């Protein structure tokens, strides 16, 4: 509507000035417009990446100048740091469980919500709500109370004859409570799935019905392939995000008990800003970057085998 009005108002005005612009000035204008991002990128991303790489080969405490130590940090990390091994395995466990769980839940619920029933918006809002607040320190506090030994979860379990334990203070279950909290926030992933489901052409289902395909068949042959790009997007971003989980571990369990929830991001944070081992922390950061990059590349390569892209007919009209 607005656009139409704008077009018609413009068309009525007189056309006098020449339309061609100098090519050079357009190049310049482009750079003028992107300059805020470009400056920020060079200053707060590219330069820090380079510096972090350099620092990873040094011993640096922030107070004195960095001292070049060669590959010492890396050698120490890989051969003589049990905390590294522990936090890496904890983080892998977290990613391994929370990413698929979240994907599964969000897809299932998106399918259930992809119907035209009255009040659907209400359900959608209710289910999305935990995602809105879930990453906050406030919810971390709530979680700590709920899953404590005196928390109400244990009372509910007692109704079913399950004896309660301190879910957070027990090293066998502490990571599970964090995974549960992460899974509870599947709403934003679900919204992306819902948007994807809306894009699936109804004709496909109709012609499949004509061919006598059942519900399951339609789901496997139409819904899943059509959703696979969205699934891939959620998988890649979900994985990268999970590797960096910080707040929940930092507030709910403080990495404990006995490091059972000592997430990699927290380990790195403490090395850098509690012990001021900036060089060591930078090496940890580069190891994380390498792991995430390799897994993302694997994801992209594997995507050729399962992600289905429609031939791009409708992209430019």
């Amino acid at each position, binding site marked *: 509507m607005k656009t139409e009005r704008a077009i018609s108002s413009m068309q009525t005005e007189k056309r006098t000035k020449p339309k061609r612009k100098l090519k050079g000035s357009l190049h310049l204008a482009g750079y003028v417009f992107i300059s805020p991002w*470009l400056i920020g990128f060079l200053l707060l991303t590219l330069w820090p990446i380079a510096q972090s790489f350099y620092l990873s080969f040094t011993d640096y405490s922030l107070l004195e100048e960095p001292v070049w130590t060669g590959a010492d940090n890396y050698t120490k990390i890989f051969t003589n740091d049990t905390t590294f091994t522990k936090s890496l395995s904890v983080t892998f466990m977290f990613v391994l469980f929370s990413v698929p769980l979240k994907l599964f839940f969000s897809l299932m619920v998106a399918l259930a919500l992809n119907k035209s029933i009255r009040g659907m918006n209400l359900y959608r809002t209710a289910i999305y709500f935990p995602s809105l607040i879930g990453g906050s320190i406030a919810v971390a506090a709530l979680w700590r109370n709920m899953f404590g030994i005196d928390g109400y979860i244990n009372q509910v379990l007692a109704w079913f004859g399950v004896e309660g334990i301190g879910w957070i203070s027990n090293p066998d279950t502490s990571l599970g409570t964090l995974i549960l909290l992460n899974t509870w926030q599947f709403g934003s992933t679900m919204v992306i799935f819902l948007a994807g489901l809306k894009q699936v052409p109804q004709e496909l289902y109709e012609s499949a019905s004509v061919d006598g395909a059942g519900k399951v068949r339609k789901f496997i042959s139409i819904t899943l392939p059509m959703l696979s790009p969205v699934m891939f997007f959620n998988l890649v971003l979900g994985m990268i995000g999970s590797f960096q989980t910080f707040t929940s571990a930092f507030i709910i369990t403080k990495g404990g008990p006995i490091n059972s929830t000592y997430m990699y991001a927290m380990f790195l*944070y403490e090395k850098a800003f509690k012990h001021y081992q900036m060089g060591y922390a930078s090496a940890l950061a580069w190891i994380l970057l390498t792991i995430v990059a390799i897994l993302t590349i694997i994801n992209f390569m594997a995507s050729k085998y399962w992600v289905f892209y429609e031939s791009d007919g409708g992209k430019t009209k």
Partner: protein
Amino acid sequence: MNALRYKLSTHLYLTLFSFLMLYPVIWWAGASLKKTEELSLPTIWPSKPMWSNYWDGWHFSSEYTFAHFFGNTLLMELGNVIGGVATAAIVAYGFGRLNFKFRGVWFSILLLTMMLPGQVTVVPQYILFNKLGFVDSYVPLVLPHFFGGGAFFIFLLVQFIRSIPRDLDEAATIDGASVYGIFGRVILPLLKPALVTVAIFTFIWSWDDFFAQVLYLSSVDKFTVGLALRMFIDQFDIQWGQLLAMSLLSIMPSVIIFFLAQKHFVEGIATTGLKG
């Protein structure tokens, strides 16, 4: 009648599931009024509501009330939102409409930065802000928003701008408008709904961006609501009722904005989806 039964059962299980999802939050509201002994009960309403939890929690710190922490956080948010909205639009116009050398390369880099783990840049960024004397100030929290507001928002706005018909630009060019004029008078007004989306998400995400806050703010005077809550949690003898009351208050700004802006929100997304 089968259709009716199907509808009813759908409503039934969706209601049940929504209730299950929201139960912790509903319980939270009741728990904020409970005495410590009652906090282990799954029931919602306390036998005797302790409204004092709110008063005492608000004043838990001997130096400052929560009003101070809310004020700090809102001040920071003001900077973040202004920075993000103003610069994301400018950068997105450059990427979405103008032709310049290496545009494709820069845009790919922009998309790549979305996948970069923040841990790689955080140490040198801290060192930089430390050298400039900005540690324990809001500068390290607010300033990054003035560099385009984040790759995600730039990407969102670029998509939006690409959906605006180019005829508009051409008509304005014929009228003698420069690229700057087209941006200011044609594109920017049309971007409004998408910019509301940017503002909302910037607000909600920076409210919860605990990592940056804990990293850069150290004096209680400058604490955000999140850091004040952390101080509360780290007390030796936690008054859980009060803590839950203040936690609940701390999510209110995001919740209110979410519900108030839902219309804008939906509009913004719907318009983004519209292809020219």
